[in-house]
Structures are given as structure tokens and as C-alpha cells.
């Protein structure tokens, strides 16, 4: 936009503000409108509800911060489910990134049949949850499952995986690796964006494959890694479906995820206010983590041409 300084001084502050911001705001207006229409109301509603008891039938009753104090001081299930969720997040998120990036790099090499291989690795993430749950329950079955069958050939008695309190959580982490196809596709898309001439220049300069990867590929992939890291954190704190279908929180509470407990409070015990309080607590935690990752962005995420 060609605005001379004189012109700038001559226009009113409002006009100036509009000129500087109108375009940007117009671009994000679809999201902004949707946010105001569909999101803000329910968000404030649920915050309000967290200070009430609400059973979906009668009008909410104000109880002040009681839900929060009970949660933080008198509810052992809150802490145990948070612990389970954090354990899951701390292991599955980095693991998922490692495996996802690794696979994407492999699938980006110039060998024939990549289309087939990429589809193969993408397939597990689109198997419907109910079918996937059944399949893994069979695979992890201590008596007739494949894993213990293979271990048996090495003369090892495998544990009972999903019903063993020591192994159940890690079985679920193991299972989450099959869902890496989603993030792998995003990494692949990111890899396509790396200009070929950079690699050519590097090869001319005498860089080997490993150096090309660590100096060009990985740094240029960091925006996508950043994205998957944040999504991974958010997703792991909401992990719910597999635990609900396969273990229902057992054995011995070792897979009682936070989101599962929240669901119970909301829909089984009809304690919506309490569940809302739980939701907003985890929201704050996830936001803090997200902001930390965001702040660290400058240090390791690479931008621009």
C-alpha cells in the first residue's frame, strides 16, 4: 500500500488503524466470527458451570469454588488420573515425533514403490477405533496373542499386557505408535517443501547424506515438528477413547486417564459442574505447556526462505 507520511498524518486515527489492520482482520474474520458464534458462548458457559453443580436437568446451583477445592484437595482420583495422563504424555509425545519424523524421512527417499509404502504406513491410523481396539486386544492377549506368541518362541513368558497393572499403560503407548501415520503425512508434506536446490548445493559442497539431513532437512522441518509437538501435547491430555473401549480405566487404575475420569463425572455421575472444573484445570495446564513451547520457538524453529 502506498501511503505517504503526509497522507498518514492527514487521515484520522481510526482510518489509520483501519488501514493497518483491516486486511489482516478481514482474513481471519471467518475464524473470528465462528469463534464468537460457536465457541465463546459455550466456553463461558462451561466456566460458569464449573462454579455450580449442574446435573443437566435442574438449573445450575451456585457453589463458588467448591468444585475446585474438592478437586485439588479432597479427590485422590484427580491426582492419580493426572499422573497417568502425564506419564502417557511424557513418553508418547516424543516417541511419536521420533517415529513420525523417522518414517517420513524413510518414505521420502527415492526408491520405487513409495506410493505403496506410504499408504501402508498410513493405513493403521484410519482403521476405525472400535476395530483397532479389538485387533490390539487380540494381539496383546496373554494366552493367544501374537506378541506373547512371538515371545514364547524365544522362551519368554510375556506379561498379560492390558490386564497387568505394570504394563497396561505402556501397552497403550505402544498402541499409539500405530497412529503415527497422521503426523507422518504432515511431515511428508513438509519435506516436499524443502527446495531441491539446497540439497544440490550441499552435495556439490561435499556433504554426505547424514549431514544433509541434519543441516538442511531437520532444521527446515522444525516448523512442522513444532506443530506436531503442540498437537501431541494437547492430544495426549485428552486421550480417552482407547482407554474407554479397551481397559475402562483398569487394571487397578493404571489406565485411568484424566479425560476418562472427566467423562465419568460428566455423564455417569451427572456431575457436570465438577467435570467443567476438571476441564478448565487441564486447560490451564495445557495452555501453560503450550506457551512454554511457543516461547522456545525462537530457539529452535526455523523460518523463511
Amino acid at each position, binding site marked *: 500500500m502506498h501511503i505517504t507520511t503526509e497522507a498518514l498524518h492527514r487521515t484520522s486515527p481510526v482510518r489509520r488503524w483501519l488501514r493497518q489492520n483491516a486486511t489482516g482482520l478481514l482474513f481471519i474474520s471467518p475464524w473470528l466470527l465462528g469463534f464468537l458464534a460457536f465457541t465463546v458462548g459455550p466456553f463461558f458457559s462451561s466456566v460458569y458451570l464449573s462454579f455450580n453443580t449442574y446435573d*443437566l436437568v435442574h438449573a445450575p446451583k451456585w457453589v463458588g469454588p467448591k468444585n475446585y477445592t474438592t478437586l485439588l484437595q479432597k479427590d485422590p482420583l484427580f491426582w492419580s488420573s493426572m499422573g497417568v495422563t502425564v506419564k502417557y504424555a511424557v513418553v508418547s509425545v516424543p516417541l511419536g515425533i521420533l517415529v513420525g519424523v523417522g518414517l517420513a524421512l524413510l518414505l521420502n527417499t527415492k526408491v520405487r514403490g513409495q506410493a505403496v509404502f506410504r499408504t501402508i504406513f498410513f493405513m493403521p491410523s484410519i482403521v476405525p477405533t472400535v476395530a483397532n481396539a479389538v485387533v490390539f486386544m487380540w494381539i496383546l492377549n496373554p494366552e493367544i496373542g501374537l506378541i506373547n506368541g512371538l515371545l514364547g518362541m524365544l522362551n519368554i513368558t510375556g506379561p498379560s499386557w492390558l490386564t497387568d497393572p505394570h504394563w497396561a499403560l505402556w501397552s497403550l503407548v505402544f498402541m499409539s505408535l500405530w497412529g503415527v501415520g497422521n503426523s507422518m503425512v504432515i511431515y511428508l508434506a513438509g519435506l516436499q517443501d524443502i527446495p531441491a536446490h539446497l540439497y544440490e548445493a550441499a552435495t556439490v559442497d561435499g556433504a554426505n547424506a547424514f549431514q544433509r539431513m541434519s543441516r538442511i532437512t531437520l532444521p527446515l522441518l522444525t516448523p512442522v515438528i513444532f506443530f506436531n509437538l503442540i498437537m501431541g501435547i494437547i492430544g495426549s491430555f485428552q486421550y480417552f477413547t482407547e482407554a474407554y473401549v479397551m481397559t475402562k480405566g483398569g487394571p487397578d487404575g493404571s489406565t485411568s486417564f484424566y479425560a476418562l475420569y472427566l467423562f465419568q463425572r460428566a455423564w455417569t455421575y451427572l456431575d457436570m459442574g465438577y467435570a467443567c472444573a476438571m476441564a478448565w484445570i487441564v486447560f490451564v495446564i495445557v495452555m501453560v505447556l503450550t506457551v512454554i513451547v511457543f516461547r522456545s520457538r525462537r530457539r529452535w524453529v526455523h523460518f523463511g526462505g
Partner: protein
Amino acid sequence: MEGSALDKLKAVLGAILVVVVAAYLLPPPPPELHRKNRIPVIFWHAFSGEWFPIYDGMIQRFNESQDKFEVIGVVVPGEELTTKFLLSASGGATPDIILNWDPVLGMWSDKGLISPLDDIMSPAEKQEFLRRTYPIVKRNSMYRGKIMALVDGLDMFAVYYRAEDLKDVGVDEKHLPATLEDLVALGRKLDKRDGQGHLRRIGFLPKGIINLAPTFGGKFNDNGHIVADTPGDLAAMSFIGDANHFYSFDAVDRFTQSLAADAGPNMPLIAGNFSIMFDGEWRVKQVAQYQPDLPYYLAPMPPPKGGKPNASMSAPNYLMIPTAAKEKQGAWEFAKFCVGFLHPEDGGRNMGEMGWLPDDPEIAKAKSYLAYLRKYPKYKVFVDLMASPNLEIEPQGPLQGFATDQINKAEDAVSRGESTPEAALQKVMQQLSDEKKRLRDLGEPAE
């Protein structure tokens, strides 16, 4: 310039596409009334899969039997039925009648989600209901003195014995165990292990504290109050703990996981994984369906010394009319038809087709039901059980879901040997009282 024209064209086409599709999808037509001039009655249930044709047939029979109402059945997946109903209730858009097998009667009654049927049925009908219905069905239908639901299919439990396995150790139908102790001894004789000592067959494995408690005189519902630590409950829990201790929980766990499926042609009774099983009445029909020539005996659970004979837990499917229902009269007419109240022949047929137990002796005597019993003679054991005085009902009240969860967790802990029966049940009572206190603090009903 060309690019811009092309872009504009694409935008226009896109807009047209959106409009066309929106027009196709938008208008919400009224519910699918096949017959004109009838009042619709919306009915939500979770009988999908192989049950659906049976249920749908019943709905059609009702629609054909009268011309005032038309019942429209909506199938909702069982796990989500409660969630969907609660959401609809929060918006005041409930169905007219709903069938749910989740233990929700107490909670939904307290929250005013469902209407007492007392207000919908005529005084004459109410009198007749109280007079003719089996006591156990009445107890299951009522909460705090009001009739809150009709029971549509009551689950009951008895002992199934695989005849061939028993023959191997010289036991026939006339010599079934008379006490629980004898049954356990018989079960242990029937265990089979392989060369490495792994269990290949377990004679008898007790599981499910809530179902087993009545045999020991235990109960979890004391006139509407939830209890968990009566002497009978304790005895039942010890019984489970002892069995798991005997076999070692890890071995039991692996064994039970190796079982194929809970239903279908490979269910444990047919596959022979257990010789003796304490299981529900639905197995009769399933065995007849998948392995009609399987020889087995069926008898009520023998009591332990000092226990109760002919005891069983009962678990109902509830037919309930939501408070926000628009057509309660029609819903009531349909409910009566479903369970066969004042319609014994229809009820007999409906119960027979689903493989369920009758709500009152009139239905049990109906020709249609007798025909069913002739086809599945073993079922009579359960029908006779309906009149036993030693039947119990599950916990009810605002904490019933919570209580059931805690009781099951306690059983798990005892089975694993991580807690003694006393400590586990004490913990349940403590958790119950803590939760009650929390609810009272919040001004919610707690009992």
C-alpha cells in the same frame, strides 16, 4: 487477467455447489410417519445387530394392533444411549419412551428425568399391576414408593453344568451339588491342566460379587439404601478371593483372556473352558442357537452353609417414560404391549422371541409363552426362580453408578490379592460416605 477470471469462475461454482448441497440437506422433515392420522410415539432403544429385527417386529405388531398411535423406533448404540438421552433431556427434546439397561432408575427418578407411571396409568391398572406382577419385578420397577418403569426383560442367574464334563467324574443330573461347598469341590475335580501346569479348563470360577452376594444372604440395596458390607457381602467377597487365591490371579487372568468370546458359537459354555458356570438366562437361547445338541444341566445356585437357596441377583431392562415426553399416553400403551401387562398373549410372544422372563404369572401361563417354553424347556428353571423369596435388586439412588463402580473395583482388588475382603468393602463404604458428604455440601440429594 485470465487467472483472475478463472478464479472468479471457481468461486462462483463453489458457491453454487454450496447452495445446492445446502438446499438438499437443510429442511428438517417431520418424523417418518408411515401411517397418516396417527399420533407418533418416539421410542429409543439399543437393540441393534441380531436383535433389531425382533424388536422392530414387535413395534410393527403394536402399530398394527391399534390405530391411534404409531411407534417409531430409533436405534442408538448401547454405550451412548445414556449420553444421548441426557443431552436431549438437557434441551427438553426427549423421546416419548426409552428402553435402557444401564442401572439408572434411581438417579433418573431423583433428577426428575422420568415420570412416575402411577400418574399415567389408570387407578384400576395400578391396582392390577400391584396385584399380579411378580414381587421381584415390582421391586425392580419401583423407587421410593412409585412405579418408575416397567421391567422389559429381567436378567436372572443360575448354574449351568456341562453334562459331559460331569459324566467324566461320575456325576449325573440326579446328583448335582446340594451345597456351594460341594459345588466348589466338584469344580476343583474338573480342573484340567496341561503338561506345563497351565490351566486348560477351570471347573468353576466365581466372578461378579454383585451377582453372587444373594446366595450368601448379602445385598447391596437395603430398601433403597446402598450398602456394601453386610455379612453376606463379606462372605461372598471372601469366596471370590479364595477362589482367585487358589488358582493364582495371574493364571486366572491369562486363562480368562484366552477365552474366545463371551457370546456366539465359541462362548465358554460351549467351548468347554469352564465346566460349571453361574450365568444369566440369556444363555439358554444362545446355546440353542449355536449348539442345540450340547448336553447340560441347569439348576439354581446351591447355597453355602447358612446361605439362601434359590437366590439370584436380578438386573432389569427399564422401559421408562421421560418427563418431557410429548405423548405419554401412547408411550404407556406401547409399554404395556411390550412387556405384556394386560396383554398376556402378546407379552408371551415378545418375551419368547427375545428370550426373556415374564413380568407376571399371567404371561408365564399364556399359550404363546408356553410354546416358547416347550421349545426351550430348560428356561423353566428361571421362570420358577421368579417366585423365589431370595432375590435381590441392584443398588438404586443418586449414587448407584458410583457405588457399582467402587464395588467392582473392590472385587478386582480382592481378586488380585491386593486387599482383604473386609478392607475392600470398608473402603467402598468410606468412599460412599465421602461422596454423600460432598453432594450434601453442594446441596444435592445424596441418598
